[in-house]
C-alpha cells in the first residue's frame, strides 16, 4: 500500500532535486509545450534526449522511472490500439470494415505513444524530485498574479499542502484500523462482491471519524497558533541559483530546437 508510485517524493541530493520548484514547474510546462510542438520524430528525439539528461541528473533509480510508466500503461496501450486501427492512410496493410492498419497509422500511434510516455515520465520526475511542501510553495508563488483579482491563492495552496500531508497519515490509519478488524476476524479477501463491499464498513466508519477528528484538531491547533492573522512569511525562501539559470537555458533551447525541427522538416509522414 505504501508504494504508490505516483506523486511520491524520492529523497536524493542531485542537480534536479536542488532546482527551484517554480522553475521545475515552468520547465514541465515548457516541456509539455515542446512535446506538442514537436511534429516529427526528430523533434521527439530531441525531447527524449533532454528528458534522459534530466533523469540522469536526478539520480533516480531507473526502476522508479519505469514504475511511473507502468501506472499509465493501460492508457498508453489503449491509445496505441485505437489509433492503430482507426487512423487511415495510403499504404494499407490490412483492412476490415472501418478498421484498417496502415503504415501511417503505425507511425502515428508510435508518435502518440512516445509523446504520452515522455509526458508521464516528465511529470513524475517533478513529483519524485520535489517535496510536496516545495511543490505547493512553488505553485503558490507562480499563482501570485491571481491575488490581484482577489483569488485566495494562499488558502488554495494551504488546502493542497494539507491534503498532500494527510495522505500518508490516512493510509497509515487505514492500515491500523484494518489490522485491528482483522484481529477480530474480519475478512477482506474472500466472498462475493457485495460481501466484500460490506466488509469495508468496519474500516470506513472509523476512518471517516478519525479524519474528521484530525481536521478538527488541526483547525484548533492552527487557531491556537494564531493562523489567519496578518501577513505570513516563509520558513524556506525560494531562491534562483546558477542551476536554475542553466535549466532555464536548456528549456529555451529545447523549445527553439523543436520549433526549428518542425519548420524545416515538417509533419510526420
Amino acid at each position, binding site marked *: 500500500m505504501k508504494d504508490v508510485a505516483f506523486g511520491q517524493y*524520492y529523497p*536524493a541530493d542531485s542537480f534536479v532535486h536542488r532546482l527551484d520548484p517554480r522553475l521545475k514547474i515552468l520547465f514541465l510546462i515548457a516541456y509539455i509545450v515542446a512535446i506538442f510542438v514537436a511534429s516529427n520524430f526528430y523533434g521527439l528525439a530531441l525531447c527524449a534526449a533532454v528528458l534522459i539528461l534530466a533523469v540522469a541528473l536526478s539520480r533516480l533509480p531507473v526502476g522508479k522511472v519505469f514504475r511511473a510508466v507502468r501506472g499509465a500503461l493501460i492508457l498508453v496501450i489503449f491509445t496505441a490500439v485505437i489509433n492503430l486501427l482507426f487512423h487511415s492512410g495510403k499504404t494499407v496493410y490490412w483492412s476490415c470494415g472501418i478498421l484498417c492498419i496502415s503504415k501511417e497509422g503505425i507511425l502515428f500511434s508510435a508518435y502518440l505513444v512516445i509523446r504520452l510516455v515522455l509526458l508521464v515520465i516528465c511529470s513524475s520526475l517533478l513529483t519524485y524530485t520535489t517535496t510536496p511542501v516545495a511543490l505547493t510553495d512553488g505553485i503558490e508563488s507562480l499563482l501570485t498574479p491571481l491575488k490581484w483579482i482577489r483569488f485566495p491563492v494562499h488558502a488554495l495552496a494551504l488546502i493542497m499542502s494539507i491534503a498532500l500531508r494527510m495522505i500518508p497519515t490516512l493510509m497509515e490509519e487505514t492500515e*491500523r484500523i484494518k*489490522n*485491528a478488524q482483522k*484481529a*477480530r*476476524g474480519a475478512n477482506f479477501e474472500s466472498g462475493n462482491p457485495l460481501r466484500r463491499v460490506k466488509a469495508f464498513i468496519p474500516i470506513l466508519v*472509523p476512518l471517516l471519524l478519525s479524519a474528521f477528528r484530525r481536521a478538527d484538531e488541526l483547525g484548533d491547533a492552527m487557531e491556537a497558533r494564531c493562523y489567519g492573522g496578518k501577513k505570513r512569511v516563509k520558513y524556506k525562501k525560494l531562491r534562483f541559483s546558477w542551476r536554475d539559470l542553466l535549466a532555464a537555458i536548456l528549456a529555451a533551447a529545447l523549445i527553439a530546437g523543436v520549433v526549428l525541427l518542425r519548420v524545416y522538416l515538417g509533419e510526420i509522414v
Partner: protein
Amino acid sequence: MRIVVEHLSYTYQPRTPFAVKALDDVTLTIEEGEFFGVIGHTGSGKSTFVQHLNGLIRLPSSLKRQKKIKPKKGCLPPPPPVLKVGDFDLGDKKTDFRALRKSVGMVFQYPEYQLFAETVKEDVAFGLKNFSEGKPDPRQTEEAVREALSIVGLDYDEIADKSPFDLSGGQKRRVAIAGVIVTRPEVLVLDEPAAGLDPLGKREIMQLLHRIHGSWCKTIVIVSHDMDEIAENCTRAAVFSEGKLVCVLPPSELFRDAGRLTDLGLDIPLTAKLVLALRERGVEIDCNFRTEDFVAAVLARKGGAS
C-alpha cells in the same frame, strides 16, 4: 499455548530510502500461563513485535509470493526465523491464520478507534460473528456479549443498545476490549491498554486482566510504558531497544539493575526508587518490587531493628 520466537527480524519499507529496521534478531520464549510484559523506549519495536504474534505481520516464508533476497557475498545467510504459537507455525503457508487469530486476541493501542457499529452490542459481537462457522445462534451471542461486557465492568442492559460513539473515552475503551475478549482467546495480547486512562481506569483494566487470566485466558502479553504496572503484575518482562531484545527477566531481577533501564531511557517503578533511596541512607531492602512485598520487607526490617 507456548510462544516460541527465534531470530525474528522485521524491516518496514525494505529496499527504500525510508527503510526502518524495527526488529533485529529477536529470540525469546513465552510459557503458557505467563503474564508477560514488553517494555522499551518509544519506537523500540514493541508494537511491531506483538503484531507478529497473531499474524498481522507475516513472516516472509508464510506469504504466497516470496521475494527472494540474495544474501550478500562473503557473509553467511541469517538463520531462518521461527515463530510458533502453540501448534500454529506462523512461518508456514498452510497455517489457518483466522483460526490463529481466534486463539490469539489482540487489543491495539487506542482500541476505541476501531469501533464502527451502530450499537455497542453489534460491535462487541463483530468478532464472534466473524469467527463462528455458519450463522451464530442469537441467544448464545447475546449471552457471550453480556458476559464480555460484564467482565470489562459494563452493564449490558444499560449500554447494549447505545451507540458506541455516545460513550465516554474510558467506556469506549472497555467496549473495544470486550469486542476482543468476547471470543475467549487463549492468548491475549494488549498494546498499552491503559494509555491515556485515569489512575482508577488503569487499575480497573489491570484487575480485569487478572480476572480473565485466572480463568480461560491462559497467557497475557502486555506492552506498557508504566513500570509500576509491570512490577506489580508481570511474571517476566522483555526489554526492547532499537529493535533488539536487551533481556528477558522477572521484575524482581529486572529492576535491581536500575542503571541499565535508565540508560535505555526507561523509568523504574516507585518501589525500586524507594529501595535506592533507602540504600543511600544505608538501609538494604530485599524485595521483588511489588508494593505489598516491599511493605512487608520494610516492616520486617523495622521489626528486626527495633
